């Protein structure tokens, strides 16, 4: 049986937990959106609310995909002991930050709209996107073949 170092296991557990719970949350948002379609809710479907519809669709899509990405992240962390370098704490924080900022930014952007412009909540999206990029970049680096150790999990060597 493969033994994992504590930090890697903790990261994996955290991302699994967060991933599945956020997946539940954003799938629920999807069901809410479908219900608004079903009941023809003007607040969501009216032409004047076209921007809200777009923003919430994006919130649902990004939230769902990022939740799944966090689950994949957790599974990747669990394979750290198999000879690959483990994901860093830095990557973990980035992925969690992206999971919060991107969908929440889109959701808040759709809550208060100004014609074709989303509300100011949309300002959360660019930093969220940056965190996602950094997180994926960090993951990509960590999965290079070659020795792995618990040291990576502390983020000490980047």
């Amino acid at each position, binding site marked *: 049986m493969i033994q994992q170092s504590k930090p890697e296991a903790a990261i994996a557990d955290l991302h699994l937990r967060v991933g599945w719970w956020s997946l539940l949350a954003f799938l629920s948002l999807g069901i809410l959106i479908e219900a608004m379609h079903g009941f023809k809710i003007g607040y969501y479907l009216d*032409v004047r609310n076209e921007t809200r519809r777009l923003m919430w669709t994006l919130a649902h899509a990004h939230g769902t995909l990022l939740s799944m990405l966090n689950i994949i992240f957790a599974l990747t962390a669990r394979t750290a002991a198999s000879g690959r370098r483990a994901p860093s704490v830095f990557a973990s924080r980035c992925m969690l930050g992206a999971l919060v900022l991107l969908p929440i930014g889109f959701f808040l952007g759709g809550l208060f709209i*100004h*014609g074709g*412009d989303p509300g100011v909540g949309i300002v959360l999206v660019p930093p969220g996107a940056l965190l996602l990029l950094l997180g994926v970049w960090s993951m990509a680096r960590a999965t290079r073949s070659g020795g792995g150790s618990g040291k990576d999990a502390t983020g000490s060597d980047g």
Partner: protein
Amino acid sequence: MEASLVILSALCAGIVLVRRVGRRAWGLAAICALLVGALWCTHYDDVAAELQALLPAPANHDGYVSSASCRSCHPEAYHSWHDSFHRTMTQPVTPAMMLADCRGADGRGIELHDRGHTTRIAWRGAELWIDTVDPLWLLPDERSANEPPPRIESRIVMATGSHHLQTYWLRRPKFEDDRHSDDGAFFQAPWSWLIAQRRWVPTQDTFLAPPSSRLERSMPWNTSCNMCHSVGTRPRLGPNIIETDSVELGIACEACHGPGEAHIRANESPLRRYRKHFAADDADPTIVNPLKLDKQRSAEVCGQCHSFNKELDMQRWMDTGVAFRPGDELGKTKAVFGYTENPTHPRLLAHLKAEPDALQGRFWKDGTIRVAGREYNGLIESKCYTHGEMTCLSCHAMHDYAEPKDQLSTAKLGDKSCLQCHARFGADIPAHTHHAVGSSGSECMNCHMPHTTYGLLVAMRSHRIDSPNAATAAKTGRPNACNLCHLDRTLAWTAEKLTAWYGHAPAQLTDEQQRLAAAVRWTTNGDAAQRVVAAWAMGWEPARQVSGVKWQAAFLAYLLLDPYTTIRQVAFESLRKAPGFADFEFDFVAREGDIHPRIREAIQRWGRAMAGRPDRYGPHLLLDPEGRLDIDAHERLLQSRDNTPVRIIE
């Protein structure tokens, strides 16, 4: 959609192939599907591009950008405009937008006959073709009674209208032996489609004009309708070729807001946009908002089209298009004409040379405009405008409107439009109106904006907002609001009421005006404008509720023989609402010989409906208590009809 279906079908075929041939066929199937889809898309693009090549060339000039650029930032405004009749005023002809039946019973097209000439219209795939008399032959110098008219076969490429009627524009091709340099000229098809009636009618019979036994000429779109029915069109009539181009067909965003390029450039910055979103005053100097203009400039935005006007510099218009921009002073680039006995303006004199009765046709004798679509002329004659702050947007809204027909603001429906200024009447409405609250006589517009303008086969509300006056009606012949509802009353009755209620001075009335119901006079010995307005009013529901529903049918039946085709049609539409006439059929453009039997039947039906039970009678209606018409008196009235030619060309 079609491309997706084709690709899906190809994929299904691929799956079958895979099952039979093996996995290697997957790649082949996918490539085939993509190729087929791409070819299909290309085919459709070719159709669209081919039609586009026949239309006025698209050209974003002088800062215009077209409505497509407005949509992403103003989705609600874009969609409310998209749902309006303004957008569909001019459209490229495609099967999807076509309202008319061009396929006929056998699906092979239609053949129409009028004034000895035949027209054939048929779809060829997605292309609409017409075979008809060459429109250039119809121009005055081309007429020759001794030669058979030359015919042309050409594409119908544009359509105008989508509300009352739809009319079509053919692009006349240039022929090898053609001495005309007209390639690129659009002429109106000789037949148009009446939308509610679902039938073809000769285009010239859609205007109120004296009867004519010959085909009338049609002005090329390039030098007439485009001025208001499109955005930024430049006629550009060259010596050998016409190079008309246009920013956009139909009446779009920039017709009212002005060219949008500077606005788009300025608002590319999100910081600027969000500063505006959170600013107390969101005014943006890079674009015109008619709501924020002063009353003159605001009304002139609509007045650039909704008035009887002419460009001051025709050559400039020919070269560079309409010079007026929203926010400008209209008088600097266009002259708006009212009624005058002594025209002196050079542009008006030039127009009167081509159309000598232009003023007599368009205006009542008191100077009130009577052609529909020229509401600005009425507005600027109204005290609400001259002494108040009223503009078009006091009642209408181009985006937040209740319905597309009149585009009345949802916030100012009903009497709210008037009460926003005349609030004192709202406290005790019957004291002012002398009609019960909730009755049609209590509605502001029914008294102050009667249906005395005409166009598109219906009477419409006058936008010269005034009060009923029997003396004016007696003097000018303009039907008054009271008698357009109380059709069974005399003008003397109206004068008496106005004197009693509002202290009007007693009106000087002729014997006939005192003896006969106003509507009886208008429909029998009135001029064509009075006849058409009265005929329409006889079918107007508030008037029917107030004045009865049976007795009018006799007068409407006689109007089926009116020399003006449009009056016959309007009378027919009102007649169909009378008891016993729901299934009555009548072709208002039929030959006179075919009309007589229909009139006899109408009279018989009316007789059966009355049958000793008239809902109104009396000498003022020429009806005895048994409901019999005083034929002699009616005939005498008909003989005294005002046959002054009237042309109301909208």
